């Protein structure tokens, strides 16, 4: 576990960036890959290693950073929803309704989709918890963050290895 302490730190940072409303507006596809890259850099510094990073190690650091980001991001998101009984599903529901009404789809499907999200909305407003919402947050965070973390690790390792080969860069 100690081996991945840098991944824990960077994953925590990325998880927070993905959830805090103001910081979220700056979030983009680089947050998780950058966190994975930074975790590799921090690990190199901490171990004072001058050896090239293997692709396997880069992949593992990327995945673990992504997993930590997903863990913290999901925890904060679900916890804030539980406490405040409010989240982006609630605030964007009227817009979602308008959007769905505008699509050229059969009325039955429109009603079904709206009922589904109306139920989620009501559960969150009353209990602060919805099983479907929790499942969607966990699935999204764990799959997307892990993949983007792995990509960041693999690309990041090449940048770090290049600097080891050419210290002047």
């Amino acid at each position, binding site marked *: 576990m100690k081996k991945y302490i840098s991944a824990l730190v960077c994953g925590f940072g990325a998880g927070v960036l993905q959830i805090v409303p103001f910081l979220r507006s700056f979030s983009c*596809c680089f947050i998780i890959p950058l966190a994975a890259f930074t975790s590799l850099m921090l690990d190199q510094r901490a171990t004072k290693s001058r050896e090239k990073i*293997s692709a396997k190690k880069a992949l593992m650091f990327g995945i673990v950073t992504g997993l930590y980001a997903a863990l913290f991001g999901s925890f904060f998101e679900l916890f804030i929803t539980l406490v405040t009984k409010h989240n982006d599903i609630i605030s964007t529901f009227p817009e*979602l309704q308008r959007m769905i009404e505008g699509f050229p789809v059969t009325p039955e*499907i429109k009603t079904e989709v709206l009922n589904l999200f109306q139920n989620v909305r009501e559960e969150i407003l009353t209990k602060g918890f919805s099983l479907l919402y929790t499942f969607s947050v966990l699935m*999204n965070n764990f799959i*997307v963050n892990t993949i983007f973390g792995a990509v960041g690790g*693999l690309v990041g390792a*090449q940048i770090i290895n290049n600097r080891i080969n050419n210290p002047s860069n």
Partner: protein
Amino acid sequence: MRFQYRLILFIVLLIWFSGIFVEWLIRFDNHFLFALPFLQKTYSLVCHQGKAKLFLFNNGETLTCARCTGIYLGLLLVSFAFLFKDYKKKFPVKFLLYSSVPMFADVILYSMDLYHYSKLIAFSTGLLLGSVGFLYLYGGLKNLILEMKN
């Protein structure tokens, strides 16, 4: 890298890129409407989805901003090109840094109000970085496969 791996990579990128246009896909299959809120959440993890920065098309919107759409299209286009030829050449990291300069320059310049945000500029700079970025993703995957074999 074997053709099968390159094909898998291309298909994964194609699925990811298609998801951005789910509002358009709903017109072809109504059941995509069930996936819309879920996918909005998925892409919100990797893009701020600022309303003014999304592409509008046929009464629909992309699920990512112009810049992110450009990045993913760049990745997809180059992965398509790599289906036909497996490039053995290693690309220096400075290419990646140079290709990111226009994008960061655009972010900084429009943030400083030197000019108004342009979807076309954002898309083009993203496309450049995505296209070059694929070379490094590909290089990383190749290294990984090589290490796994040894």
